[in-house]
């Protein structure tokens, strides 16, 4: 059962927006915890989330700090918003630091359309998107890939989709890691994961997944916005989803193996969800290969969804996608582990960075940043909750030292789904948003209630902390016009 010590009282203020959880506050912590929060956001952080920061700090080979971003809230294993890096040789790899929805992530598409072009067609556009992209529980894809094709997807990621007519070559170059993680091991994917993955390519899923039409409301950094192709008044389109059943099954399967492995290698687990194994062990490497495969599936999924969506835009506006300027700005993963090089204590080290509900935010000049953005830094996409602004940020050099080049991933929940359903009527929320000019389409009204704007922290406050601390700088604010809810 969860320990009940109030860890909030143990947090020490290091600087504005930076809090430290000392090693002394919990047995077994190898490094301190570090939480990036404003005073205002601190009140929303659950004790259990701080416990989870402490739990992660006990894992072998952890470097510098067990971190939590300003959107942090209680998760399972890692907190949501958790970031930790583990030494390539002496550290561990843990599915608890990635989660079930492997490579859940966000992509942003820009357009040459202005708000006034879209508003008269908003309803038609949303209905078209809702029909084209299967969403919600129990929905099935119109595409059914063979087992052989699925193996190719697990290895190639976005590239498979483009080669099969779902998009253009430039799309690949505008994804984190070119839309794939190397080292995929499709033979580590169970038959069950294959069965779940085959009928779901190009589906949104449910929960907090969405498609959103937005309008650029404010530009904070003209030069960087120009590099990202963003300007005030422009229409953008955002996709938020992940690896669907395939990813969930990969995590379920490998957790079991890593649970036994943790025992075998004598690793003490404060929470069984943190099951892990030494990074170079067979068990950890097999999980990493399967995780990479699921991550590649997720990139393919978002690529296929973007393609289906572009076709709807073409139909509604009777223009082709080049005329519509429907270019991919960027695609980021926010549930993933990656082998990266970081400067730690004056030395360059290779570490497995786990980001669970956190976004990579690499700066200008980094070789892993897409060529198109290498002079300014990587776009960091932060979706707001339904009806609230989303933000585009850009990775800063200082972020590499502060948080292994990692930023927040969203607004972060503050209210449970069951509480939300009791407090709000989905239909009321839909009408309130409509009054503000925001249309919402969902399979069922209760999924709207669960994701009501009030159940999240303020996305603006969360993003401001990331900006002030220096992890990433604000570039643009996007306001929603229409949402398709999964």
């Amino acid at each position: 059962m969860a320990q009940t010590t109030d860890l909030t009282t143990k947090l020490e203020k290091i600087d504005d927006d930076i809090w430290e959880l000392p090693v002394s506050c919990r047995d077994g912590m190898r490094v301190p915890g570090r939480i990036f929060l404003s005073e205002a956001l601190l009140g929303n952080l659950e004790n259990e989330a701080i416990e989870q920061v402490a739990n992660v700090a006990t894992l072998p080979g952890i470097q510098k700090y067990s971190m939590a971003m300003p959107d942090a809230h209680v998760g399972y294993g890692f907190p949501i918003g958790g970031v930790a890096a583990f030494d390539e040789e002496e550290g561990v790899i843990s599915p608890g630091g990635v989660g079930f929805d492997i490579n859940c992530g966000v992509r942003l598409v820009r357009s040459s359309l202005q708000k006034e072009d879209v508003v008269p067609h908003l309803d038609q556009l949303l209905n078209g998107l809702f029909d084209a992209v299967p969403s919600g529980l129990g929905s099935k894809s119109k595409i059914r890939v063979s087992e052989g094709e699925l193996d190719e997807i697990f290895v190639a990621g976005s590239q498979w989709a483009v080669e099969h007519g779902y998009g253009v070559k430039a799309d690949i170059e505008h994804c984190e890691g070119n839309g794939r993680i190397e080292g995929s091991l499709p033979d580590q994917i169970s038959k069950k994961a294959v069965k779940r993955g085959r009928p779901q390519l190009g589906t949104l899923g449910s929960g907090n997944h969405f498609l959103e039409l937005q309008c650029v409301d404010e530009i904070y950094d003209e030069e960087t916005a120009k590099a990202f192709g963003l300007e005030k008044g422009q229409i953008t389109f955002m996709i938020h989803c992940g690896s669907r059943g395939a990813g969930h099954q990969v995590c379920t399967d490998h957790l079991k193996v890593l649970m036994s492995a943790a025992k075998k290698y004598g690793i003490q687990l404060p929470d069984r969800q943190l099951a892990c194994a030494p990074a170079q062990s067979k068990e950890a490497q097999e999980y990493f290969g399967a995780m990479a495969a699921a991550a590649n599936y997720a990139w393919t999924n978002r690529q296929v969804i973007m393609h289906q969506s572009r076709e709807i835009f073409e139909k509604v506006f009777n223009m082709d996608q080049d005329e519509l300027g429907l270019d991919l700005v960027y695609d980021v993963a926010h549930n993933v582990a990656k082998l990266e090089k970081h400067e730690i204590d004056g030395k360059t080290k290779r570490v497995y960075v786990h980001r669970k509900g956190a976004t990579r935010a690499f700066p200008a000049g980094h070789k892993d940043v897409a060529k198109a953005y290498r002079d300014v830094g990587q776009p960091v996409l932060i979706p707001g909750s339904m009806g609230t602004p989303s933000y585009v940020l850009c990775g800063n050099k200082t972020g590499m030292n502060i948080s292994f080049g990692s930023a927040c991933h969203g607004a972060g929940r503050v209210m449970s789904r069951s509480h939300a359903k009791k407090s709000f009527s989905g239909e009321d929320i839909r009408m309130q948003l409509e009054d503000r000019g925001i249309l919402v389409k969902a399979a069922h009204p209760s999924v709207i209630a669960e994701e009501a704007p009030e159940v999240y922290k303020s996305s603006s406050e969360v993003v401001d902390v990331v900006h002030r601390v220096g992890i990433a700088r604000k570039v643009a604010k996007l306001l929603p016009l229409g949402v398709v809810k999964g």
Partner: protein
Amino acid sequence: MAVGTKYEYMEHTADARFRAYGENLEEAFEHAAEAMFNVMIDTSDIPCKFCLPIEVEAHDLEMLLVEWLSELLYVFEVDCIVLSSFSVSSIKQKDEIYSLKATACGDKIDLNKHEFETEVKAVTYNNLCIEESEGNVMVQVTLDI
């Protein structure tokens, strides 16, 4: 907790956590399955048109509970059957292996008829616990949604 409560949902910011009760392990596991499916849909009107035998094994009881619920999620997704009624006939331990035999029943998913809410993505080990006392079993599970 009221007498006869099969399960109750606990507050959890992002996910769904419940406690399920029973006179024995078998009954508590049945009620846990009911609790999990009722996160996604009100199962009270779902008839038992299809019945499936379920057998799972694990190294300990907690893992067996996760295996059982994960298997049901898999059946739901792959066989497209929304499950509403569960009968666990036995939970046994032999040497280092725990095994469960059960039947799960429900109806084919029909999106015109079934109003689904949020999807349960997976069953987690987070704060998982099983408490057994004479004639009373409580299991606590956190679902990723």
